[in-house]
Structure formats: structure tokens, C-alpha cells
């Protein structure tokens, strides 16, 4: 399977390039007496650039410790991590998301940090909510590196050309799917660019919609929450916008089902004026385009029940395989506390959980980061409560949703048929997991 070869090749060549850089920087072989710490994250070009810069700063400040970075796209990250778990050679410090973290704690790949708190690891300035989010059964496992929420981003130039004014034509912090349809069509007519991406196959939007309809994605007992009515209504809602001409054609959106690369978002490719993502991705997306992006919440139903949550975007965690947990946790500590380092990281991974860091960042924010901060201020108190992390099998349910939604986009089967099919398959997957 050539996939493996490519990955291994990337890995070894990255490692090689890294060590060449180190020799150059230190002017002497680095491996004999120095403590090595490996940091592995999933990212995008912007994040990778910032994180490698931060690693350089840390290595410059701490003689005797050499941190090296490894990065992959989100889709490949967990594949590689899994093989590393099996091989017993996980990096010291890994990135985790809220959804999957608990599985890794349960199987022992991620270890508690309590022994290091107050020594190598300083969490005295962290928000209590962030500490709680990383605590399981009274043990502290995961250091939050930013808060996150669902965000719609729009191309301000195209909106302006179509005369759609955020705050006047529609309220970016409370608007309905009907309003979205109206201004999406107006943008298409005025500019020739579709007003919005088509989210028929977007599970994140679907989960948002489910909560807006008063249900949960997963019930307390781990069973699947959305009903036949909710699934049908979700797909019909988007079908109405698509049929009115507010989105790119169905087959075009079908090609993007399940694609997670930021470069494929409608706002980046120029195929639409509005795309949907996690708020911390705004900085990365803005880095890929010329036009200025504005931020809005996800569309809602007329009842305006909040559907988005604010949750830790990512954590850094210590792994079972770390040979130098003191050095590793000291690096983790600096990653969230050191003002030189956090200044470089900015808001790219989300809003930092350390109040001192937030205050220090305030005067030097980039325009995109300012949009992010304002968005966060505006959605406070307007979000849904954080639910329990999803059960195992949820990733497969998500992929099944994306797959079946394609037949809705292509108009191959009726919406009720596909909805029934999806819910049956989701049940079967959860029963098997």
C-alpha cells in the first residue's frame, strides 16, 4: 500500500530535515547529552509555521532540551498515532480533540498530569472551565490550548457587492435558514457566485441543527438522538436553498462530501460566499485568501434555540511512551504560559484558556484574530451546554451520514428514504461498536 510508503517517507524526511536544522543551529551533535522531546500535532500550513517557530523559541530558551515537531493533516493524524500506540513509540506530547480524548484516556495511551502540576507544569492561571474539561474521574489529563465554537465565515467583498449588510440585512448572531436562503440567492444573482456552501453532507451543521431542534446527537444511554423528522427536515431545509439557487449545484457539493481540507472550502475556492467551520480555523482560512472574511453563527430555526457549543478546541497531552515526562510537561507548560511563545501561537488554535495570555495578546491581534475575539464575545451566553463526548462508533456514523447525503445531493433517492436508511445504519453501527 503506497499510502504507507509515502507517509513513512514524509516522516523520515521531516525527521532528517529537522536534525539537519538542529546541527546547524547548535553547531554540534545534539543527541548525545540533550533531552529529546517529540511534539506531534495535526495542522494546516499556518499552524505548522507558528508551531515550528514556537519550538525554535523554546529550544533557544532551554539549553539541554531539544524539542522536535511532527505534523500531519487531520485525516492522517490519528492513523499514524494509532500505529505508534501499537508500536509503543508515541511522541512525548500529542494533540487531542474533545471528541476522541476520552477513548485515549480509557485505553491508557494518555497519562495523568497530576504528579507534575505545581512542579514542571504550571496551571495556576488557567480558566477553571478549561481545567475541568481536561479532567476525568478526578484526574487531570489534558491541557486545553484554546476554546472553540461553530462559525460561519463569509466573504465581505461579495456580500457588499450584493448589498447584503451584516447587522442590517441580517443579524450575523441570529438569523434563520429562510433568511440565509434569501440573501444567498441575492448574492448569486448579484455576483454570480453562490451565496453559501451546501451543507447537506456536513455533519457538523447537522449536529448543530439537531440541538436546535431540541434533541441531542447522543442520548444519555449512548443511543442515537436525531429522529426521522429531524433528518428529513435538515435535508429539506438545504434542498430548498439549493433549489432556489443559493448554493453550488448538487453534484459539485457531492464531490466535497467528507473533505476536510480548508483549501476546499467554498470561500477559498471562490465557489461560494459563505462556508462553515470551527472558529479556530478562521485564521488558517484567512491565510489562504485575499478577500476579508467576516464571522457569523450557524443559521438557526425561527425558535432560535442555540445549537453550537463552546468547547476546548484542542488539548496537549502527555503519552504513556514519554521517556522524559518532566521535560515534556515543562514544554507543555511553556506552550500555554510562556508569553513569547503564546504571542506567536496567537489564536490559531482557539481562544487561549490563560487569562494572562489573553491580555497580552489583545494589543497585537491580526485583523482575522480580532474578528475571532469579537465573535467569541458576542456568542457568550448564546450557546448550548457542553454534552458528554460521543460514544465509540460516532466517527463511523459521521462517515455514513456524509456518504448517504451524497445521494440526496445527486437526487438519486427521496429524502425520507435516505433518512430512514441513515438512521438504520447509524443504529447498526452503534450496536456493533
Amino acid at each position, binding site marked *: 500500500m503506497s499510502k504507507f510508503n509515502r507517509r513513512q517517507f514524509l516522516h523520515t524526511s521531516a525527521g532528517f530535515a529537522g536534525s539537519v536544522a538542529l546541527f546547524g543551529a547548535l553547531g554540534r551533535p545534539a543527541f548525545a547529552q540533550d533531552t529529546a522531546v517529540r511534539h506531534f500535532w495535526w495542522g494546516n500550513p499556518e499552524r505548522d509555521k507558528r508551531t515550528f517557530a514556537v519550538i525554535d523559541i523554546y529550544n533557544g530558551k532551554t539549553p539541554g532540551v531539544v524539542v522536535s515537531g511532527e505534523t500531519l493533516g487531520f485525516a492522517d493524524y490519528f492513523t499514524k498515532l494509532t500505529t505508534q500506540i501499537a508500536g509503543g513509540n508515541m511522541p512525548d506530547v500529542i494533540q487531542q480533540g474533545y471528541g476522541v480524548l476520552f477513548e485515549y484516556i480509557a485505553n491508557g495511551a494518555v497519562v495523568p498530569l497530576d504528579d507534575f502540576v505545581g512542579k514542571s507544569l504550571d496551571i495556576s492561571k488557567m480558566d477553571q472551565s478549561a481545567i475541568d474539561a481536561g479532567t476525568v474521574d478526578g484526574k487531570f489529563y489534558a491541557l486545553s490550548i484554546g476554546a472553540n465554537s461553530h462559525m460561519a465565515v463569509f466573504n465581505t467583498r461579495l456580500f457588499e457587492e450584493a448589498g447584503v449588510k451584516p447587522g442590517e440585512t441580517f443579524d450575523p448572531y441570529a438569523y434563520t435558514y429562510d433568511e440565509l436562503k434569501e440573501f444567498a440567492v441575492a448574492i448569486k444573482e448579484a455576483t454570480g457566485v453562490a451565496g453559501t456552501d451546501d451543507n447537506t453532507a456536513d455533519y457538523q451543521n447537522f449536529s448543530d441543527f439537531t440541538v436546535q431542534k431540541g434533541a441531542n446527537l447522543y442520548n444519555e444511554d449512548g443511543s442515537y438522538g436525531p429522529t426521522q423528522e429531524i433528518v428529513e427536515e435538515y435535508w429539506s431545509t438545504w434542498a430548498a436553498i439549493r433549489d432556489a439557487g443559493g448554493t453550488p449545484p448538487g453534484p459539485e457539493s*457531492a464531490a466535497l462530501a*467528507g473533505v476536510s481540507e480548508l483549501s476546499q472550502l467554498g470561500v477559498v475556492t471562490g465557489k461560494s460566499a459563505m462556508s462553515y467551520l470551527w472558529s479556530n480555523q478562521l485564521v488558517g482560512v484567512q491565510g489562504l485568501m485575499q478577500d476579508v472574511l467576516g464571522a457569523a453563527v450557524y443559521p438557526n430555526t425561527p425558535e432560535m434555540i442555540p445549537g453550537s457549543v463552546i468547547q476546548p478546541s484542542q488539548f496537549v497531552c502527555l503519552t504513556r511512551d514519554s521517556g522524559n515526562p518532566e521535560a515534556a510537561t515543562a514544554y507543555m507548560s511553556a506552550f500555554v504560559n510562556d508569553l513569547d511563545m503564546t504571542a506567536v501561537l496567537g489564536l490559531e488554535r482557539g481562544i487561549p484558556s490563560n487569562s494572562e495570555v489573553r491580555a497580552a495578546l489583545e494589543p497585537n491581534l491580526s485583523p482575522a484574530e480580532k474578528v475571532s475575539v469579537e465573535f467569541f464575545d458576542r456568542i457568550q451566553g448564546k450557546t448550548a451546554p457542553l454534552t458528554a463526548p460521543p460514544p465509540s462508533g460516532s466517527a463511523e456514523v459521521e462517515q455514513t451520514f456524509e456518504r448517504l447525503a451524497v445521494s440526496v445531493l445527486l437526487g438519486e433517492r427521496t429524502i425520507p428514504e435516505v433518512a430512514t436508511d441513515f438512521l438504520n445504519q447509524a443504529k447498526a453501527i452503534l450496536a456493533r461498536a
Partner: protein
Amino acid sequence: MHKFLRRNFAGYAFLSPWLIGFFLLAIGPILASLYLSFTKYNVVRPPQWIGLDNYFYMFQMDQRFWKALQVTFQFVVISVPLKLMFALGVAMALDKGIRAIGWYRALFYLPSILGGSIAVAILWRQLFNYDGVINSILRLFGGDGPYWLSDPKYSLWTLIVLAIWQFGSPMLIFLAGLRAIPQELYEAAEIDAAGPVRKFFAITVPLLAPVIFFNLVLQMIEAFKSFSGAFIISGGTGAPLDSLLFFTVYLYNEAFAFLRMGYASALAWVLLLIIALFTAIAFWTSKYWVHYENERG
């Protein structure tokens, strides 16, 4: 035994790099995967013995398994004959003493070297995109191309074309086979007033049969194992609507996206048995249509 070892020690010593590699890197993992196919194994927890459950589930419950089989068979049945015909056609064209033939051979072989690579799969995706090269050309002539990649009606055909394009290695083998056919036979046929079609079916095909058979078996196995093109073009999931869910892509997903290593191992063994079965069928039929020159009968 001792004597035997002493006498052949040097030979085995020279073979040892291969032997060690074979037992450690091939036989070892193969046996391990046979064991794992009877377990539930998610990598992070130790494997758990569940007997034949994986196989029962596969044949009785798993709709995607049957879909993957269907897609793979469709691909094999369509792409292999087309590729062989194309390779034979090009080989026959090159068999005429054209000038700079070496260059043409190298040129036509090139796609086979590139074809399995990720870069070409990505290139293919660009070519067949809705706004890609193929549709741009169609638009020049006033046509409007379909969504090749996101419409399940067409997506598999893009991969079949990709497979045919990699005709280089069967072509080279055909060329060698054509060279081995004695020219006298054609001359004799011409004297008897046989046309090109008659010559092809009465001389070329029967005498080339062993080579055709060899290429058929090789390409069939290759097609069953085909992975990277479908993986890249479908974004790793077999999309759209599982129309590119090659058996290997499904296997990869079960193993690395959903961490069902036990089930994926069972899938791998089923694929092995399918390939073995089809190879056996090919060998069995071969005695009716493949005749070797040194056979008397």
C-alpha cells in the same frame, strides 16, 4: 543433517538476507493476520478471540462488504481485458520495424512506472474535475461534460481509464512474445492469401496464447489489489456513494479509520482466497486455450 548443513552453509548464508526478510517481514505478518482475523482488535487493547464471528458478520450482515466485492469485480472484469487488448494493439504497432523504436517503447512504458503513484492519482483527479482539463476540452467542442468524479455513474470509469493507461508492462511482454513468432508462418499464410484478420486469429493469437495467459493472470491479480488510485480519487472513503469502494479501500477504512484490525485481517484473507480462486480458474481454463510450442498433441 550436520553434513548437509556444513556443505550448504555458505549458500544459506548468502541467502540469509532474503530468508530473514521473508520469514520476519512476510510469513510472520501473514500468520499474525490469520490469527487476528479470528479476533476483535482495536490496536490499543489486546486482541480478543471471537472465533468465526468476523466471517459470519462479513457474509451475513455487512452490506458494504458485498458492495466492495461488486465494485472490485466490475473493475477487474472491465479493466483487465481492455488493458490487455490495448497493450496488444500497441505492441503490434510497435512490432513493425519503426525507426527509434526504443524511444517509443520507453515512452509507452512510462505511464506504468508513474501510474501507481500518488502524484498521478492526484493529477487524474484534476483532469476529471468538473472544471478540469477533460471538461474544458469538451466545452471547446460545445459539449458539457458531466461530473466525472462525483457522479457514481462515471467515477469508476475514470479509474478504468487510468488502469488502461498503465499498459506498459503487458505491452513489453507482448512485444517479446510477438518477436518469438516465426516470420515464415506469416509468409506462408500470405502465400495462401490470408488477410490481416485471418493472420491475427490463426497465427498471432494461438502462438501468443501463453503470453496472453501470463499477462492475464498477472493483470488480474494486480487489478484485484488496486488501491492508490481509488483511495486518492475518492478521498479515502470510496465516495461517491461507495462507487469507488474497492475491496482494498474498504479494508483500509475498516483497519485505519475505524480501528477494526481483526475484521480488516479477515477481509484481507477473503481477498487472498478470492484471488487464489480466480487464478486457479484461469489456470484450469488455460488447458483449453493455451498451447505451448513444445507440446505435441
